[in-house]
């Protein structure tokens, strides 16, 4: 079943994510994807995440279609102007890619080429708008296309924004993204189900499917790093202590993820699991959570 069909069916949707590396080696990534192929509805492919130069998301998304996985092609506005973005979108469709996640993208200063010139001619909202135009058969300039795509456009939202202004801005932007055509949202990593429930109440009635983000906690160090450095991600201290006290860290991480999946089942339309190389643990998480 495609991601589109899965979202429309009303079932609790599961997506995962793979991140191409620096270089041309894709074998291990395909192995990671193969492990979860039968268990997820789609797999995101990140676009130079954290502004680190890597193999591109279009190429790997295409590889996923080759092995029968429905990819979510992540596209950021950091590195391409509107000509390149539109052309890449057409190319992606021609290569069999049907889902696009429209992102603004991190600033180059965050990555390994910090002096790179950022583009940001478009942003996540205007990119969604452009995807809508391409879907309707015209480009940004109003020129007619010969053969048009039919992308399922998605976007992201950060329910853990750390103050009232930031959260209000996230929710207002989410509404604008829906106006611009976003059909589904994948959220930033969530660890606090109570806060997530409050967020879901605020966006009740929004006309889009929401998949709660789950980042597998691989270690205490990783949790502390994210708390310090990743905007909108907050791992509560009890969870950090749970990992710290556990003899088997992986098992503790799986237990936490299972509780999050179970909690989200009643709150939103699916989960987006960011396993960061621990894709092999996703089937066990889903089994235990009864999915």
């Amino acid at each position, binding site marked *: 079943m495609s991601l589109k069909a899965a979202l429309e069916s009303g079932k609790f949707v599961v997506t995962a994510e793979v991140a191409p590396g620096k270089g041309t080696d894709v074998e291990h990534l395909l192995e990671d994807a193969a492990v979860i192929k039968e268990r997820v509805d789609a797999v995101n492919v990140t676009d130079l995440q954290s502004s680190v130069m890597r193999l591109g998301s279009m190429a790997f998304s295409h590889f996923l279609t080759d092995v029968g996985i429905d990819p979510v092609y992540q596209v950021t506005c950091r590195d391409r102007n509107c000509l390149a973005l539109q052309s890449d979108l057409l190319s992606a469709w021609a290569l069999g890619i049907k889902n696009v996640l429209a992102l603004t993208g*991190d600033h180059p200063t*965050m990555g390994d080429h910090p002096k790179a010139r950022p583009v940001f001619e478009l942003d*996540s909202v205007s990119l969604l708008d452009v995807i809508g135009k391409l879907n309707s058969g015209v480009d940004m300039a109003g020129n007619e296309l010969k053969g048009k795509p039919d992308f399922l456009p998605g976007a992201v939202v950060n329910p853990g924004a750390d103050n009232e202004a*930031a959260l209000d*801005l996230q929710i207002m932007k989410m509404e604008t993204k829906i106006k611009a055509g976003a059909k589904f949202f994948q959220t930033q990593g969530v660890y606090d189900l109570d806060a997530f429930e409050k967020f879901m109440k605020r966006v009740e009635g929004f006309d889009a499917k929401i998949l709660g983000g789950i980042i597998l906690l691989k270690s205490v160090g990783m949790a502390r790093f994210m708390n310090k450095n990743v905007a909108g991600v907050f791992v509560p201290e009890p969870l950090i202590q749970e990992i710290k006290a556990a003899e088997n860290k992986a098992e503790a991480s799986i237990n936490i993820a299972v509780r999050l999946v179970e909690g989200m089942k009643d709150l939103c339309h699916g989960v987006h699991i960011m396993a960061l190389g621990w894709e092999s643990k996703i089937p066990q998480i889903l089994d235990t959570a009864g999915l």
Partner: protein
Amino acid sequence: MEEILTMVEEFDRILVLGCGGCTTVCCAGGAREVETLATLIRMDRKQKGKPVETLEAVTELQCEPESVKPILEKLANQYDVVLSMACGAGVQTVAQLFPNHNALPALNTLFTGRAEEHGVWTENCLACGDCVLWRTGGICPVTRCAKSLMNGACGGASEGKCEVSKDRPCAWQEIYHALKRLDKLHYLKQEPQVKDWPVHPGKVVREDLREGEATRVD
């Protein structure tokens, strides 16, 4: 300073030309800075055993030809090179008016900004040609947001600070607070905005001001 000394090393008669506009206001190229720079150049060249003559002058506005021409004409034949302490527009005005003289930039023009407090300046305008300040609480997202976002905040801010630098406030959170204060938060619930970026180099022609231009002697 080293860069300036290298620029002028082939010249023996230098006109150090300040500007009475922006670079005077931001203490980078007014009368005082002209005097200091001319002195430093003379001292350096004396030390190197290659003395130099310096002239000092300040134009009213170096980006206005009318302000530059009389001064340069009055001092004609007294200098081989103009070391301009104006912004890049001023340097180019000099270069264009006197194509047979070198016009050298003494300053690196950084941005169009304003004095945040004494001795602190911030970039505030990118001259994008499509001002949105009326609906952003007087805070420019094109300039003050590191990504020039037009449709609201990205998810990168942490504790109100931009992902690019902890000493930089998130422009969109500032816009939010300003609009909330003005009771105009609904301005943020807008249709998707796509910005038309200007084509460089910019040019403006005001026909109403050009009437009678044919009689003007350039």
